[in-house]
């Protein structure tokens, strides 16, 4: 018990220290490196909070994908660095006071919990058996609050559309300018040949196991995206043109199947996004697989950025 609380304290101190240095670091590059480390530490914090699903998501997306995006950005921004505008001291003091106030407010809210802490956990577990799922988080995502999950996929597609819409007109339909440029390297090529088969297996496993244990479409999709990006960065596969019909199809296949099953529920199960009894689990697993594909492609393309060169015929 003592050891674990000691561990927690050290972890929190580390998180706060590294978090502060992402803000305080002078160079953007250093700040981003700090942020990646920070993301990994945060994933451990999530494990300590008994939220393994979130820990996986945080490690994969919060640290990994976001870090990669930022590194790609800083590599391009470097030439334009040296922005000398500094915020004035009074502004900084005022901002500091305001932020301290907000932190204090949040801290108060956390330090004064309600006398009886309300929870939905028993209700979630009681009804989980009907769906045949074993992972309560998946139950919330795909059964009780399926509407949010469905719409959040639409958010992802809109974000991608937003990124694409920044392309110059002439490049529309063309090839995204993947942000990370490396010289072709034999080592990287080797990794890009070796890792993806393993990664794909892990992604499929992640998605499959998600119905009963921590894991699921997000985590699986992120791994898929990472493998795809690796292959593209190593130059083994070209970045596809965004006008490709198959690409568009892959992007929407997850939400479309989800929506279709939801609408079918209106007829077959009496309500939108309800599953006919006995078919819940296979339907949810189908949705999760389709979503894993769509999420993987969407995340990969979000990281790849807007199209920059027209597609050559």
């Amino acid at each position, binding site marked *: 018990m003592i050891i674990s609380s000691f561990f927690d304290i050290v972890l929190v101190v580390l998180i706060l220290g590294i978090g502060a240095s992402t803000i305080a670091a002078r160079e953007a590059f250093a700040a981003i490196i700090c942020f990646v480390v920070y993301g990994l530490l945060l994933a451990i914090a999530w494990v300590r909070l008994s939220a393994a699903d979130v820990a996986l998501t945080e490690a994969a997306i919060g640290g990994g994908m976001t870090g990669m995006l930022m590194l790609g950005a800083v590599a391009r921004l470097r030439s334009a660095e040296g922005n000398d505008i500094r915020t004035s001291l009074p502004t900084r003091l005022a901002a500091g006071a305001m932020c301290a106030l907000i932190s204090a407010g949040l801290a108060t809210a956390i330090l004064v919990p309600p006398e009886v802490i309300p929870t939905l956990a028993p209700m979630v577990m009681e009804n989980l058996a009907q769906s045949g799922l074993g992972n309560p988080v998946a139950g919330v995502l795909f059964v009780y609050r399926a509407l949010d999950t469905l719409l959040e996929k639409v958010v992802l597609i809109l974000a991608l559309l937003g990124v694409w819409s920044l392309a110059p007109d002439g490049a529309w339909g063309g090839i995204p300018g993947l942000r990370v440029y*490396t*010289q072709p*390297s034999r*080592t*990287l090529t*080797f*990794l890009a040949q*070796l*890792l993806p088969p*393993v990664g794909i297996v892990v992604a499929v496993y992640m998605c499959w196991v998600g119905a009963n244990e921590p894991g699921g479409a997000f985590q699986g999709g992120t791994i898929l995206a990472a493998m795809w990006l690796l292959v593209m960065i190593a130059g083994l596969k070209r970045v596809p043109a965004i006008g490709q019909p198959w690409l568009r199809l892959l992007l929407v296949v997850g939400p479309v199947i989800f929506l279709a099953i939801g609408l079918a529920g209106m007829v077959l199960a009496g309500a939108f996004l309800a599953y006919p009894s006995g078919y819940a689990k296979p339907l949810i697993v189908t949705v999760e697989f389709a979503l894993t594909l769509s999420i993987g492609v969407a995340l990969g393309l979000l990281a790849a950025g807007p199209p920059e060169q027209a597609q050559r015929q």
Partner: protein
Amino acid sequence: MNLAFDILTVSAVSAGALFFLAGTVGLLRFPDPLTRLHALTKVDNLGVGLVVLGLLPRANGLSGALKLVSIWLLVQLSGAIVTQLIAGAVRQRGPHG
């Protein structure tokens, strides 16, 4: 039997942690990128290896043990490749590029 496993776990994980500590000190104290890489790879290799070894007896059956070992292998692979890439970059642009 259990006691023996416990001793193995404690000693192996502690030894692993020690390597992590040493590696981190090396990362912070060594003068140039290549020696720092050298410190890092030791951590990847031995530190993770020992921790995994220590945890094996506590693994959740055979599949759990397999997962642990495959984690070690993946860390090995990524460590080796990333080190190669960084070392290559250092050679190309010089230690301060």
